[in-house]
């Protein structure tokens, strides 16, 4: 089992499971509404230039958030992922 690290530390192409959200209530509520719930898998798609924001995906929602906010989210179970083509069964 891996220990918790901060979402900010993930690199593009890595996914992880959200384990803790340590933010003020306003941001926590917004994150929840964006789908950031404990136990959900989060994918880091890319990072902006000059320590710009992170582009992440949870479920079918894509979100950008700044590093400042990402440093308040802890994740675990870091893995590498690859984009897959759509499952043809689901598209039918």
């Amino acid at each position, binding site marked *: 089992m891996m220990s918790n690290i901060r979402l900010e530390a993930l690199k593009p192409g890595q*996914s992880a499971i959200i384990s803790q959200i340590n933010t003020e*209530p*306003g*941001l926590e*509520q*917004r*994150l*929840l*509404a*964006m*789908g950031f*719930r404990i136990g959900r*898998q989060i*994918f880091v*798609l*890319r990072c*902006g*230039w*000059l*320590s*710009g*924001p992170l*582009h992440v*995906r*949870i*479920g*079918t*929602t*894509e*979100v*950008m*958030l*700044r590093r400042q*906010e990402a440093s308040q989210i802890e994740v675990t179970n870091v893995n590498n*992922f690859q*984009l*897959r*083509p*759509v*499952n043809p069964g*689901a*598209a*039918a």
Partner: protein
Amino acid sequence: MKHVAVLGMPNTGKSTFFNRLTGANTSIGNWPGITVDLMMAKVKLGEELTEVIDLPGIYDLRGFSEDEAVVRRFLESTPLHLVIIILNATQLDRQISLALQVKHLNLPAVLLLNMADEAPQFGVEFDPDKISQHLGIPVLPISAKYGNGYEAALKAIHNAVQQQDKPIITGSVEMCPACDEKIAVEMENLLQQAVSTPEQIQTNLTTQLDRVLLHPILGLPIFFGAMYLMFKIVYALGIPLQDQLQKLLDWVQASALKPLVAGLPSFWQGFLLDGIYTGLGTVASFIPIIILFFFCMAIVEDSGYLSRSAFLMDAFMERLGLDGRSFVMSLMGFGCNVPAIMGTRVMRSPGLRLLSMLVIPFSLCSARLNVFIFMTTALFSQNAAPLVLFSLYILSFVAAIFTATLFKSKYPNKEPLVLELPPYRFPTIGLIFMRAGNEVKNFLRWSYRFIILGVIAIWLLNNLPPGVPPASSHTFSGMIGNLTQPLLSPLGINSQLAVALIFGFVAKEIVLGGLAVIYGQSEQHLMGAIAHQIDWVQAYSFMLFTLLYVPCLSTVAVLKSESKSGKFALMSVAWSVGLAWVASFIFYQGTRILSF
């Protein structure tokens, strides 16, 4: 009359649905204690006329943002017969919480799952009947954009409204940790039984496009290319259209209106033609640009690219307390400030919006460019003129960045930048037209009185007391010009140029015409007359002042209507005039000390 509210998360096509439901006859309603515009319309549902209100898109009924507070206040104060909840069918895994919150308020509701046509593309499956069982309200999949499922949805809404005889008003929508926990549990259950979202991440059109459009190296050049193209489309088409419209208005004035008022004393002729008619013309001349601007904005915004600009520009804009969308608007402000300020409405955080509105007027718009081209041609050599012009563009950026840095603590962006990047979509033609039409309506609704009154006031200043040559030193504006000399002569701005600045308050387009009147020269000979009277240092100081002080009356009008605060508009005017004075003073005195 019965009342129905439309509620939903941002980016769910809520407005598209509202427009489809209500057609073009929307208006803006006044609600006690609510400062945000709420669109409403009267719609015939069956036999009954029903009032439908479009609430701002929100994430959470108990959220902390301005929009969320507005929706709370609205629900707590307005008895409703029905709430139509709109959610994005592909994102039910997170959005269903809003429907559960409404359920807990015991409001009569219908849930529409919009963009149902997109669900297979994302591998999302859902069962409307099961969701309906969980929530105890009708649930229908629709596509507001293409109209699929719309008839059935309308029928369900009609039935629900008919069954609801008495309106219901909810109690307080307050914090309730216990309810939140209950909702979280219900949400898990509902999602498990009725919705399936793939956990594996898949490629689709959006991920493929993002690979190019958000590319670490190519992303920014493509963004600037796209902005350049948009700028070109809006203004390469818009400015000639504006000119043609002006010619048409002049022609009507010369051939129809002038003979009509010929019998009146010349003062009243001037008042009617140069005051009221010119005022109307000023309002009208913005319409083509606003239409074109919002055509393009609708495409850039609805396609999903505008939020990507926030991602691309954030590293830089964050330091200024702004975000990438403010950057897009400021850039567009280089064509015309008026639609750019109206465009800030896409930013929902009040602090961010006000700061953007404060910055945009420093963008060197095409009307100011005309003045600068004239002055640089008159007073600078062919080699120096482009450099002078370029320096003004640089100063325009510097003033904007300086203003943002200075005011970012006064208008803090309280909303965290956790921004959704919606999938790329093709906006429909109908929606693009609807958007442009609504924006023109919006502009006319708030701004025309202010602009027309302003034009009349300036005309009166230039022509009263009766019997003196217009804009001469004997008129009120001439007197003001003289009165301001103690303030403006340290900037090298003489009384004639001061009167031109008063003209310029209405619109920079008329500064040259104003100068021609003031100097009593035709525009062809004006160059010589001015070059004879002032030197290049004075000219540059005048241009610097023109660049920084109030862009035009129409900009002030939209600043006031968009911020809903006369105080804010006044503050913006005071700040820009103050900055203009200081900058010109430093330049003029500094250059004189260096004995140019």
